């Protein structure tokens, strides 16, 4: 299908094509047919997983007050989905502002900036929708199959939600841009997006740690909501939930509100977005501290030069640090869930401590990837009179210090609880970090530094191996903390994974040189 060049539909098609290419990039060099097979198998698998959920819900549906079950279920889903969609929109809008890609070309063209923004926003909404739909649609389909077609109202409600969230994400991004300026918005936007995205899971856990009386009050308010209260399902906050429940007037209203908000945001903010994108491109580099004005004495030696270079590059890129810390934030809810599931008798040694081991291994992997695979000037290093092994060894040494800085606080916190657990955790953190760093050394995946969290798109295999190493070391840590002899098995499994990934003869190596 071809659209009139320069039209809104033409711009949307252009953005969607780029989005599709990015999606295809996740699968590496696989052929379109193979990708289609993987997608079909994935869709079937997710439907199979959702099958018992549909059956279970349909069984409950018949025996209980429909509304009593239906609304909390949809409300929970909405509380999970909406922050996720807003977070995605915020991330994608910030990315569009900073790594503008083709925006320079588009803004230099005589097309109206509001059309360009609207097309971009449309693509962002579709991409965000896709990331949620892959999990939600199978559940909806299975519920519709077993429980009735009224579940299908979730489809238009979800679509409207994606457009509402995208408009809100755009507004948030530009508000941050106005408040924080072009240099800081990228980092702050990322942090805000993460907090919003992980907010629901964290909020659920916060409820668990509230005093019992307050918790009971909240639960009672949910069960017996007062008219006009936060939990009154007839209130305006519940509009998306009522829309998803298939109440036609509310569904129409929610669609109207969402698409209206989206249209208004893109029309009103188009010019602002264009000027912000231009400002982000021309933002002057951060001012250096005045003390830097004095010229230092040059340091000597290869090792010092390489280590200092790595530390400087890392310390001067707050966006990169925020990306690495995202891994910590995403791991936290899981750790809290495990901790709470242990009840009052739960041991921090088998809840939070393994999460620290996982965090250590993931941060080490990220840092090792940054130092080894994401070298800014690989050709330059290759022309230096040093061997590749010398460079790699110094780079691995360099990641030790930032890793220690990331982990010092949690391990000290653990030590306050139990010195023994802290020591065991520290030992397994070192082992896990060393193994994932070695994996990244042995299997380099060249890429730009901004791709640190998407580095596995080049090699799913390395990603899987990395996660297996994290898992085995975390399990070994738990078993060691419990004093189990099975620790040896878990350590053996981790070492086995490492041995399986050992360096092959040089001919089979993927060289770092791009």
């Amino acid at each position, binding site marked *: 299908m071809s659209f009139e060049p320069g039209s809104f539909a033409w711009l949307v098609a252009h953005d969607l094509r780029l989005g599709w290419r990015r999606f295809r990039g996740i699968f590496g060099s696989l052929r379109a047919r193979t990708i289609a097979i993987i997608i079909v198998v994935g869709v079937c698998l997710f439907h199979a997983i959702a099958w018992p959920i549909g059956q279970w819900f349909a069984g409950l549906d018949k025996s209980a007050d429909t509304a009593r079950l239906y609304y909390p279920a949809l409300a929970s889903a909405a509380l999970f989905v909406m922050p996720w969609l807003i977070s995605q929109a915020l991330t994608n809008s910030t990315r569009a502002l900073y790594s503008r890609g083709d925006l320079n070309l588009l803004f230099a063209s005589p097309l109206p900036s509001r059309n360009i923004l609207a097309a971009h926003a449309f693509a962002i909404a579709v991409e965000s929708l896709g990331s949620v739909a892959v999990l939600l649609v199978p559940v909806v389909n299975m519920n519709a199959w077993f429980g009735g077609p009224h579940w299908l109202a979730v489809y238009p409600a979800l679509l409207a939600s994606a457009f509402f969230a995208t408009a809100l994400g755009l507004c948030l991004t530009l508000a941050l841009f106005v408040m924080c300026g072009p240099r800081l918005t990228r980092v702050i936007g990322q942090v805000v997006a993460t907090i919003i995205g992980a907010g629901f899971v964290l909020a659920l856990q916060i409820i668990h740690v509230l005093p019992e009386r307050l918790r009971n009050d909240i639960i009672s308010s949910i069960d017996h909501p007062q008219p006009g209260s936060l939990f009154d399902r007839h209130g305006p906050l519940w509009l998306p939930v009522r829309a998803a429940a298939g109440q036609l007037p509310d569904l129409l209203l929610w669609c109207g509100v969402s698409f209206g908000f989206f249209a208004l945001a893109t029309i009103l903010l188009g010019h602002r977005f264009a000027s912000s994108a231009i400002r982000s491109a021309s933002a002057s580099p951060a001012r250096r501290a005045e003390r830097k004005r004095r010229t230092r004495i*040059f340091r000597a030696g290869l090792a010092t030069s390489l280590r200092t270079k790595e530390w400087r590059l890392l310390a001067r890129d707050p966006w990169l640090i925020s990306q690495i810390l995202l891994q910590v934030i995403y791991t936290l809810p899981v750790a809290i869930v495990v901790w709470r599931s242990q009840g009052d008798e739960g041991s921090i040694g088998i809840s939070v401590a393994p999460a620290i081991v996982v965090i250590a291994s993931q941060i080490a992997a990220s840092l090792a990837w940054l130092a080894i695979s994401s070298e800014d*000037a690989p050709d330059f290093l290759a*022309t230096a009179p040093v061997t590749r092994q010398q460079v790699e060894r110094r780079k691995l040494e360099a990641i030790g210090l930032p890793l220690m800085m990331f982990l010092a606080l949690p391990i000290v916190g653990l030590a306050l609880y139990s010195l023994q657990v802290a020591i065991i955790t520290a030992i397994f953190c070192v082992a896990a970090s060393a193994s994932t760093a070695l994996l990244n050394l042995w299997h380099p995946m060249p890429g730009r530094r901004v791709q640190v969290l998407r580095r596995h798109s080049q090699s799913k295999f390395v990603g899987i191996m990395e996660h297996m190493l994290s898992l085995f070391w975390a399990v070994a840590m738990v078993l060691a903390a419990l004093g189990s002899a099975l620790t040896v098995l878990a350590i053996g499994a981790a070492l086995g994974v490492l041995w399986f990934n050992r360096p092959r003869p040089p001919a089979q190596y993927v060289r770092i040189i791009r």
Partner: protein
Amino acid sequence: MSEFRSPDTQAIPGLRLAGLRKSFGKVAVDGLDLSVRAGEFYALLGPNGAGKTTTLRMVAGLLPPDEGSVQIFGVDARRDPVAAKRITAWLPDEPMLYDKLDPLEYLEFVAGLWGVEPKRAQDSAVELLEVLELWPHRHELCEGFSRGMKQKVALAGALIHEPKLLMLDEPLTGLDAAIARQVKDLLVARCRAGASIILTTHILEVAERLADRIGIIHHGKLIAEGTLAELREVAGQRNSSLEDVFLELTRPMERAA
């Protein structure tokens, strides 16, 4: 230029390539024989895709040749690459810099890699930054620099370890006229000090004015080599410019291709 050099007295060539061959499915460099004397300024010219950059990358140790030998001031670069790299610098057309380092830090890093004594490196860094008019920007991160400024920082990095062989791929791209003049003076001074320089450029006027000898490479082969006067004779155009000579020499190959 001729007054700066005494090529015949130099026993060991700065660079000697013999039977150099590289193929990426299609032949890029096809049995190239080339010799550059110590203290000589050599311009390597050729149309796009002729094999110039591939040749320089092989000399710099970034690409392993399929066949042939590379000798830099008598050091076999294939047998002892580290020793060869110690006396070589390569400046590609895209500056190889770190956005998050300032020029001084970059030079400190380069000096550390090449094992230059810190005090000497620091003095050289100050001198280079002043000559290249980068001194006022010494504490600014390279990410904010224009292409020309980045090119100057990279050039300072290539010169700080005082290489005996300097290879420059389009070094004057993005430089304003005044700085281009300074860069040319710097390069000439290096030649005077005995270093060999190989330069690729599309600005034929630069080759015409600076080079002692000019080599023209096409389809991975050296099709002509000599002083400008010798090339004019080969092309049969006694009073023409290098551009006319270049076009004349590469034209038959284009037709044949």
